[in-house]
């Protein structure tokens, strides 16, 4: 996992809220190193208990479908002893003071870390507030606080039968000292945690009233759409906008250095205007870049040693003495996020201020980027965050914000910049292409005595969070390639950072493991086959140090009917991983048609994600992750030709659809460990399970994603 500082001290302060309520301010870990060492209290989450008894939570994590807006309030409601319905979430306020990390501005929702970060501090906050409310009631009644109880938003005093609502105590509680020590509930006393509480954001999402970034309509807003240089790094050379300007509803053409935007009354006119533009581009230095060239460069990079990410024992010696050697190379492609809500950002640039509306996973980054693009101090930029119509890492980036500000600087009044799907796919920032070179040595029993892995690709961290890239390594690029669950007495892993020319890279759902788990779990399968052993049994034998991994592997295999016969060209494949703090095993069952078409029929998942806060959310996230990863395995590929992304829309960048969706079974292992991440692990685990199942069905080992159906033709 990337930056997992769950044990880091968390701060909490309490005081009076405006209007007479109780306000707790706390600092939640956001997955970056930089707040370490901060000696000032910089709260980023707030809990307000208002005089009417309502409980308002303002927090830095955003809802992008993963259920955070439900699961996080559950933590507070549990300890505070209130109904979940009493907890109301407020969107990020248009007040940078609450949200900006003054050190870096890297607050973000990603890396499956929201629940992992919030688990302790939010329960502590709930328990602290509860204790202060009890103390206030005890003082009012002049009784011992230990004789009081809490239930459903009230403090009770059973001996006298008295009760008082939290709202009526909030002002007094604000004057109570913050208790030094707070006992949290024992898991056996949980009333809410562990139950399938209903999503709080669902009703507005089924009746059309939910407001995503793309839905905002500040008064007088105009709609713009844009075309960016088809080659990354290119520029506008010449433009004829006469025809575009003549279109009804088109108000203005904004020419930037490397993009042109059409500003109109509505998107229909803007798109029509865009189509009418005649632009000549100067392609710049990347005019000839192709994916094949990038892959060749990466392949070459794996021929020379790179920084060592992990070393155990002596691989060279073990390889030299091995009875059998297995070697393989693997490749995974560039991928776009293709969030259902296309990229968009609404901006109003005024003389001395700037207002931004969007849905973002990294709102402080948005503010910093907008300020820079607008040439304003950060405190003059107000950001309104909204629901996210799919993030998957794309909305951790602020490229679209910078674009929108550049355009808005030329427009009088607010302008909503909406990207066409074609721009969204052709100017995404992409999951890096990776090339991996592996070798293993087996002893005469087929056991792995040596494991060597050298891989090359882009470091997203090096750009996104430069301090995270140290000594040629970063924790994201290597997660899933090192610290494996298996006993491997001699292991050597190197990472060679190579930044591809002419294509920006970014985090993509399941980040580093999206690549590493495919490679690791394919290769372990490959050596099991070389040893002529069963893929599950082979893994089991290597799990002495990983009892939780063993449990999920065995559970998934049993539930999937591992070993039971299947018809011709139908196969089962397994994968096992420990990433994002969660143990997961998948067994995928696939059918390969004679023409090579692959259908994933069924996926059985066993998961140990520690304490389950909301089991329905866990299931939903696994279903989601499996579909997302299956799309990538079967279809996902962004290619460059002459510096241009070749895919344009959902016809050339396909998504898995209803008729192709596999049956999915999820089996959750009970655990009292702290919660692990859930948003991403389903995705990284499914890709190798599918590839391994294809091997079982056809005997063909696919070492390059996505699935090449031509290679599977019979």
């Amino acid at each position, binding site marked *: 996992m990337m930056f997992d500082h769950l044990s880091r001290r968390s701060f909490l302060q309490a005081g009076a809220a405006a209007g007479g309520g109780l306000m707790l301010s706390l600092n939640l870990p956001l997955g970056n190193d930089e707040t370490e060492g901060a000696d000032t209290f910089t709260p980023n989450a707030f809990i307000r208990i208002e005089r009417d008894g309502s409980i308002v939570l303002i927090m830095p994590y955003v809802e992008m479908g993963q259920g955070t807006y439900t699961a996080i309030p559950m933590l507070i409601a549990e300890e505070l002893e209130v109904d979940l319905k009493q907890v109301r979430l407020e969107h990020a306020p248009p007040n940078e003071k609450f949200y900006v990390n003054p050190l870096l501005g890297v607050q973000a929702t990603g890396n499956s870390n929201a629940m992992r970060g919030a688990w302790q501090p939010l329960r502590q906050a709930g328990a602290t507030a509860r204790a202060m409310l009890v103390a206030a009631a005890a003082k009012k009644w002049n009784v011992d606080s230990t004789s009081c109880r809490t239930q459903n938003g009230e403090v009770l005093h059973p001996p006298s039968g008295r009760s008082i609502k939290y709202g009526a105590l909030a002002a007094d509680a604000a004057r109570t000292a913050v208790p030094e020590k707070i006992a949290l509930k024992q898991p056996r006393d949980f009333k809410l945690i562990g139950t399938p509480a209903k999503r709080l954001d*669902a*009703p507005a999402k089924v009746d*059309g009233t939910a407001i995503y970034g793309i839905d905002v309509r500040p008064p007088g807003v105009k709609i713009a759409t844009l075309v960016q240089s088809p080659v990354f790094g290119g520029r506008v050379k010449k433009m004829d906008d006469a025809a575009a300007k003549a279109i009804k509803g088109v108000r203005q053409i904004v020419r930037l250095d490397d993009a042109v935007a059409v500003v109109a009354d509505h998107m229909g006119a803007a798109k029509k205007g865009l189509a009418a533009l005649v632009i000549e581009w100067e392609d710049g230095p990347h005019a000839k870049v192709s994916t094949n060239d990038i892959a060749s460069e990466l392949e070459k990079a794996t021929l020379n040693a790179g920084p060592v990410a992990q070393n155990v024992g002596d691989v060279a010696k073990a390889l030299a003495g091995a009875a059998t050697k297995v070697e393989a190379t693997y490749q995974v492609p560039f991928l776009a996020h293709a969030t*259902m809500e296309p990229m968009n950002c609404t901006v109003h640039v005024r003389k001395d201020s700037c207002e931004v509306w969007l849905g973002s996973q990294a709102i402080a980054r948005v503010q910093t980027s907008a300020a820079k693009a607008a040439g304003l101090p950060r405190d003059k930029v107000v950001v309104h965050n909204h629901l996210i119509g799919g993030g998957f890492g794309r909305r951790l980036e602020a490229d679209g914000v910078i674009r929108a500000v550049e355009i808005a600087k030329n427009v009088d009044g607010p302008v909503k910049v909406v990207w066409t799907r074609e721009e969204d796919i052709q100017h995404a920032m992409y999951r890096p292409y990776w090339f991996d070179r592996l070798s293993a040595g087996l002893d005469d029993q087929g056991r792995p005595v040596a494991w060597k892995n050298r891989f090359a690709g882009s470091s997203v961290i090096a750009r996104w969070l430069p301090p995270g890239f140290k000594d040629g390594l970063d924790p994201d690029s290597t997660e899933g390639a090192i610290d494996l669950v298996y006993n491997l007495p001699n292991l050597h892993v190197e990472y060679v950072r190579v930044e591809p020319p002419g294509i920006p890279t970014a985090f993509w759902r399941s980040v580093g493991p999206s690549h590493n788990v495919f490679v690791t779990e394919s290769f372990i399968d490959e050596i099991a086959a070389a040893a002529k052993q069963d893929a599950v049994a082979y893994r089991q034998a290597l799990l002495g140090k990983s009892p939780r991994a063993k449990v999920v592997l065995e559970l998934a295999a049993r539930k999937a009917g591992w070993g039971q016969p299947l018809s011709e060209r139908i196969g089962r494949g397994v994968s096992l991983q420990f990433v994002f703090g969660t143990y997961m095993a998948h067994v995928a069952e696939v059918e390969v048609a004679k023409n090579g078409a692959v259908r994933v029929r069924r996926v059985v998942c066993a998961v140990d994600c520690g304490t389950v806060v909301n089991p329905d959310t866990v299931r939903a996230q696994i279903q989601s992750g499996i*579909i997302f990863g299956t799309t990538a395995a079967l279809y996902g590929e962004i290619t460059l030709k002459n510096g241009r992304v070749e895919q344009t*829309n959902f*016809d050339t960048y396909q998504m898995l659809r209803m008729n192709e969706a596999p049956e999915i079974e999820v089996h959750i292992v009970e655990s009292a460990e702290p919660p692990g991440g859930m948003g991403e692990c389903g995705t990284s685990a499914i890709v190798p399970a599918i590839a391994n199942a294809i091997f079982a069905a056809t005997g063909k080992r696919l070492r390059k994603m996505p699935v090449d159906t031509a290679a599977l033709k019979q």
Partner: protein
Amino acid sequence: MAFAINVNGITHSVDVDGDTPLLWVLRDVLGMTGTKFGCGMALCGACTVHVDDAPTRACITPVDSIGKSQITTIEAIGKTAAGAKIQKAWLDREVVQCGYCQSGQIMSATALLTSKPHPTDADIDDAMSGNICRCGTYLRIREAIKQAASS
């Protein structure tokens, strides 16, 4: 020129080119943002509305093709019997995640249920495979349609 279109029982006059897709008339001219933009090419179904009960991709439907047809959008689908059943089933089954595609999913599902009150799995595949969900809520959509059909 100005077009008179009937959306959810109310007639609106909109002054746009006749080839303007209905999607933008709804979203940007009338301010009804429940109907979503996903692809602009009828590939994803996010913009699905009903034109006289037929599920229709608003992103490729020119406003001048509508004439006197009645348009129904997500904002009003709950007023129909099938729409209300579908919305309830969506909540009961906790279908939504990011939720962005769900307006379109619900419009497609409601049209299915209206034309086929007891759809088979194959019917569901046929009616729903034009709607992409990037969060992968397909399994729950299928369950929810079945629940709505049996309620």
